[in-house]
């Protein structure tokens, strides 16, 4: 028996670098695509922005009042001119995330109305200190790749909450940021604040550590506020996420395919306008495809359809050769409990398997109404677990371990074999919260649940993690920008 094959020729070998997973067949994907083109040609979208309407008219769209119908050539051109992906850098100008192909990154979400106080457990409106604490915790977590504000703060002049939140983020993390401005004026200030960090707008454009997003109003409406921000971001060549957030059965058809059609029609019509402003400007399609629970009339962030639609949406975006902004790691539960764990795990698993490029809203409770750092920490652990699952089984001469098997032979043990010592860290995933100790040790440690451990970890990180400080010059400049606001 030849145990080691070495460099022998292996014809027609297929290697899975990850698990393989698809929701849609090629034919189903094509059907959705043609339906989307049909909606944009026949139904059109409402565009409440003169500048966008002028661009569309000039490019060949059919304009009727505020309605714009887009011929497929216009849509297909935008798909061609948009780049296939973009990179986000960290605050220090180091390249961190590459949103393209099946690369999958996770981050929290923005703008919740409530947050859970990490010390009292009280559900209350967020304060600026919460944004700072959240950024510090996220800075420390291994599987949180980008930062968002995690709640709209109420203890600052609320007209500028978005700006004060950004200040708190910039001072507490070096990780890439995805943010949003209330309007294009605030987006301008956001750019000034970030340019203060990089030393100028050109440097920020060259190595962006910031992406901005805006949402259409489902069904099929682009508001002037959203389009102002889209245009502003494209003009400034800053990465932009064009988000549609339907609720199946309420603002979009109850059928998942119909909701995908509406979502993509909004995303692609936004993409058309974006690319008409600046061809080649970096952009991602985005979806928060929720379903309406007919018993409560709530937008569910934890239902199975939520994950299915996001996975299908990812496949559609990748079919277009564009990155996708998706949603996972969230729950309809009001607490970091069993329901939260089930829903977050399922959605994170589906995102990772489908290769959603930017996965946000990790750490959300109550269908997106409330943020929780304990939930975020628990999801950080779930993401680690899922990443290991998604990597699959590596099969090569080393992992087949034929030398080790020969060395140990029948009736032996592998614990002391060098192969185990050399490869256990890459083969076996190690949790940081999940408990694998014997029962006596668990009892002696206080019989803590995973939720208890997550809450304790949050407090430990808030108190002990020290992020790299923002340079004094940038800090002062940002203070000056904010103090100059009316």
């Amino acid at each position, binding site marked *: 028996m030849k145990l080691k094959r070495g460099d022998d020729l292996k014809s027609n070998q297929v290697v899975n670098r990850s698990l393989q997973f698809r929701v849609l067949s090629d034919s189903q994907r094509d059907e959705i695509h043609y339906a989307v083109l049909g909606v944009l040609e026949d139904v059109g979208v409402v565009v409440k922005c003169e500048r966008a309407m002028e661009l569309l008219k000039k490019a060949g769209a059919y304009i009727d009042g505020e309605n714009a119908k887009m011929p497929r050539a216009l849509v297909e051109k935008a798909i061609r001119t948009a780049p296939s992906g973009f990179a986000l850098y960290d605050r220090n100008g180091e390249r961190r995330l590459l949103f393209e192909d099946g690369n999958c990154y996770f981050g929290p979400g923005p703008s919740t109305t409530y947050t859970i106080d990490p010390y009292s457990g009280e559900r209350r409106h967020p304060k600026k200190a919460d944004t700072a604490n959240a950024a510090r915790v996220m800075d420390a977590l291994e599987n949180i790749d980008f930062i968002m504000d995690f709640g709209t703060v109420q203890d600052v002049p609320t007209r500028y909450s978005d700006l004060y939140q950004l200040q708190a983020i910039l001072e507490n993390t070096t990780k890439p940021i995805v943010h949003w401005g209330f309007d294009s004026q605030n987006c301008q200030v956001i750019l000034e604040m970030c340019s203060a960090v990089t030393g100028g707008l050109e440097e920020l454009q060259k190595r962006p550590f910031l992406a901005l997003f805006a949402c259409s109003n489902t069904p099929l409406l682009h508001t002037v506020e959203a389009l102002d921000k889209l245009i502003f971001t494209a003009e400034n060549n800053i990465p932009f996420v064009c988000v549609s957030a339907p609720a199946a059965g309420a*603002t979009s058809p109850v059928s998942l395919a119909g909701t995908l059609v509406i979502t993509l029609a909004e995303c692609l019509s936004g993409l058309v306008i974006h690319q008409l402003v600046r061809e080649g400007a970096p952009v991602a399609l985005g979806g928060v495809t929720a379903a*309406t629970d007919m*018993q409560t*009339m709530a*937008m569910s*962030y934890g239902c199975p359809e939520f994950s299915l639609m996001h996975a299908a949406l990812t496949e559609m975006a990748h079919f277009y050769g564009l990155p996708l902004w998706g949603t996972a790691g969230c729950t309809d539960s009001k607490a970091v409990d069993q329901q939260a764990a089930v829903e977050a795990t399922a959605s994170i698993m589906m995102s990772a398997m489908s290769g959603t490029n930017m996965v946000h809203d990790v750490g959300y409770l109550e269908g*997106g109404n409330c943020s929780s750092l304990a939930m975020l920490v628990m999801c950080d652990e779930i993401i680690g677990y899922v990443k290991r699952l998604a990597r699959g089984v590596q099969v090569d001469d080393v992992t087949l371990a034929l030398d080790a098997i020969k060395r140990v032979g029948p009736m032996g043990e592998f614990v002391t074999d060098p192969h185990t010592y050399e490869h256990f860290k890459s083969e076996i995933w190690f949790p940081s919260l999940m408990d694998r100790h014997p029962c006596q040790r668990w009892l002696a440690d206080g019989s803590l649940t995973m939720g208890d451990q997550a809450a304790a970890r949050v407090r430990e990180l808030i108190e002990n993690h020290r992020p790299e400080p923002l340079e004094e010059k940038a800090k002062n400049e940002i203070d000056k920008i904010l103090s100059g606001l009316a």
Partner: protein
Amino acid sequence: MINMSLKVTVNITGCLKELYPHLSEREVVESDQPLSVSGLIGELGISPRMVLFAVLNERIVPKDRQLFEDCEINLVSPPAGG
């Protein structure tokens, strides 16, 4: 239970349950006068704006639809969240 004579069973759904905590999830309303969906909503003290639509015996009906003896109606609130 409100004591009148046309007997209607009303299911209160969605955020109406939180907004009108004095109402139970399933109310029985009796009236000695003809009653429309709008009239019923008024009887219950619910703001008409908070009822997105009504479902009468499993069909969506306009709010001026007259109710009949022993019918069952669902009052559905606007969707919320996200």
